[in-house]
C-alpha cells in the first residue's frame, strides 16, 4: 500500500543515464523532480552513497503525492455533498400543512440524487481504503448528509432514521469487491446534533404558521434526541466539538420548548384556540411595543 508503481518504473528507467553521466563538479543540493530528467546529468560525485536515499525518498514522494491528491479529491467530494445536502434541508423548511406531500417528495428525490451522484463519487474516491485516515476530509459532508436524511425522515414519519437504515441505503453504492463506505457512529452523532438546530428552526416556523401540534411533536422528538445524546457523548473519543454542539443543542431544545409554552399559555387567551385558521396568531397586536 506504500508503493507507487508508476514512480518505481520511472526510477528503474532512469538508472542508466546516471551511470553514463559525466562526473562533473556539481551543486550539492539539487531537486530531483519527476519531470526534471535533465538534472540527472548534474549528479554529485558521491553517487553511490546518496542514491540509496534518493531511491527510497522517490518512493516516499510518490506515496505522499498519491495520498495528498486523494485527500484533495475527497475534500472536494465532501464539499459537494455538503452543498447539496444543505439544499435538501432548505427545501424541507418550506414545508407546511398544505404542501407537505409535494415538498417532501421533492426533498426525498433531491436526497436520493445527493446519494447517487455525490456520495457515490466519494465512495469512488475512497475506494474502500483509508476510511479512518481521511475521515477529517469527508466528515463535514457526511455529517450534513446525515442531517438532511434524518430531517426528511422525521418530517415524513416523525421517527428517527437510524444509522443501520442509513448505511443500508449506502451499500449498493459500493462495489461488492471493496469495503463499502459506511457512515461511522461519530459522524452520525455529529449530524444528529446539527439536526436539532434545524428542528428548532422548523418548530418556530410551524408555530408562526399556527401548526402547534407539529411543533409539539418536534419538541418531544428533539428532547428525546438530546436525552439520548447526553449519555453517549461522554463515551466518544475526541469529543470536544461534540460537547460544544451539545450546548447549542440544549439551547435549541429550550427555544422549542419555550416557544411551545408561550403559545400554549397565550392560546388560552384567544377564542380561536387551536383552530386551523393559520392567521389566528398573526392578527394579535404586539403588546410589548
Amino acid at each position, binding site marked *: 500500500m506504500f508503493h507507487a508503481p508508476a514512480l518505481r518504473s520511472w526510477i528503474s528507467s532512469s538508472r542508466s543515464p546516471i551511470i553514463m553521466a559525466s562526473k562533473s563538479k556539481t551543486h550539492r543540493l539539487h531537486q530531483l523532480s519527476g519531470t526534471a530528467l535533465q538534472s540527472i546529468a548534474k549528479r554529485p560525485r558521491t553517487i553511490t552513497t*546518496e542514491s540509496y536515499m534518493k531511491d527510497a525518498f522517490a518512493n516516499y514522494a510518490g506515496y505522499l503525492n498519491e495520498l495528498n491528491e486523494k485527500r484533495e479529491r475527497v475534500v472536494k467530494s465532501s464539499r459537494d455533498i455538503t452543498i447539496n445536502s444543505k439544499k435538501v434541508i432548505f427545501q424541507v423548511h418550506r414545508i407546511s400543512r398544505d404542501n407537505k406531500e409535494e415538498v417532501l417528495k421533492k426533498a426525498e428525490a433531491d436526497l436520493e440524487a445527493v446519494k447517487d451522484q455525490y456520495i457515490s463519487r466519494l465512495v469512488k474516491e475512497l475506494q474502500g481504503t483509508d476510511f*479512518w485516515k481521511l475521515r477529517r476530509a469527508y466528515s463535514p459532508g457526511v455529517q450534513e448528509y446525515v442531517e438532511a436524511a434524518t430531517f426528511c425522515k422525521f418530517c415524513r414519519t416523525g421517527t428517527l432514521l437510524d444509522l443501520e437504515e442509513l448505511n443500508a441505503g449506502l451499500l449498493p453504492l459500493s462495489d461488492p469487491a471493496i469495503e463499502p463506505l459506511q457512515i461511522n457512529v461519530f459522524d452520525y452523532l455529529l449530524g444528529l446534533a446539527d439536526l436539532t438546530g434545524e428542528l428548532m428552526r422548523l418548530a418556530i416556523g410551524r408555530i408562526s404558521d399556527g401548526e402547534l401540534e407539529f411543533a409539539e411533536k418536534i419538541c418531544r422528538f428533539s428532547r428525546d434526541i438530546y436525552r439520548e445524546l447526553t449519555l453517549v457523548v461522554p463515551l466518544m473519543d475526541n469529543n470536544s466539538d461534540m460537547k460544544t454542539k451539545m450546548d447549542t443543542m440544549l439551547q435549541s431544545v429550550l427555544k422549542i420548548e419555550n416557544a411551545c409554552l408561550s403559545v400554549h399559555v397565550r392560546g388560552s387567551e384567544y377564542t380561536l384556540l387551536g383552530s386551523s385558521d393559520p392567521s389566528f396568531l398573526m392578527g394579535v397586536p404586539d403588546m410589548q411595543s
Partner: protein
Amino acid sequence: MKSAFRNAVALRTLPHYHFINPHFHSLPRFSVAAVSSPPSSLVSPSKPETFRFRRRSSPLRVRYSSMTGGETDAPASMEKQFEDFRVKLDEAGSLRERIRAVVNEIESITRLMHASLLHVHQSRPLSEVLEKPKAQVDGLKELYGRLAEVLCECPGEYYRFHNDWRSETQTVVSLLAFMHWLETGKLLMHTEAEEKLGMNQAEFALDIEDYLIGLCFLSNEMPRYVVNQVLAGNYDCPRKVLRFLTDLHAAFRMLNLRNDFLRKKFDSLKYDLKRVEEVYYDMKIRHLANGDSAEDNGTQGQS
C-alpha cells in the same frame, strides 16, 4: 407577536439554564421547580431524583416516568439504537485504554533509551553507549507486538486510534535511526525500521509520515552532537555529519509537502543543517578539519 416570543424565550432561558445543563463531569440533577411548564414536562413532579446523570462506567438506561399519552413510540427504537451505540463506544473506550497502557510502556522504554544515548554527547566510547539501547530494542519490538495484537481486534481501524501512539512511534523511529547512524553512518530505511519493530505485517505497518517525522527528529540531535564531538577533539565528525545531513536534506526536498506537521519538521531540518554547516565552516577556515580534501563533495576547494 414574534418579539413577544423572543422576550418570553429570553426570560425563560437565562435564570434556569445552568440548572438544566448537565455538566459532563459531575452529577447534576434536573430541577423540576426551576422550569414551569405545561403537563408534558421533562420529569414528573413526583420523582425528581430518578433522573441521575451517571458517568460512563455503566450505561444507564434513563427512563422518564411515562407522561401524557400523546408520546409516540419512536423512543423505543431510538433507545435501542443509542443503547447499541453506548455498548460499542464503551468497547472502543476500553480498547483505547489498553492501547494507552501499551503506549505508556513504550514511552518509558523510549525515555530510558534516549537517556542512554545522551551519553554520546559526553564522548563515551560508542560501543558502550549503544549497548543498553540495543538491548532495549527487543523490549520495544515486544511492545509493538502487543500493540498489534490489540489493534487486531478491530480490523481496519488502524488509523482510528493512530493518534494515540503516533508521537511515541515517531520518537522511537528517531532513536532507532540515530543508533543506526552511529553504528553504520547510514540512514535507517523505512523497511529496516519496520523490521526492528516487528511492524511489517499487512495490517500493522509503520506509517510513512511517522517514519519521515522520526527522521526529522533525528536531525534535531545532530547539531548538538557535532558541537560536543568537536569539543571532545573529534574533528572528523562535522564533515561526516554534514555529508549525511546534506544527503538527507536533498532527499527530503524531493517530497512535495503540504503545510502540515511534516513540513514544519522539514523546516527544522534545514536549520539543523545550517547549524552543522556553520560548525564545519568554523573549523575549516581555521584548518582544523583534516583529511577533507580528496573525498569531499565537489564544491569544496581542491587544496
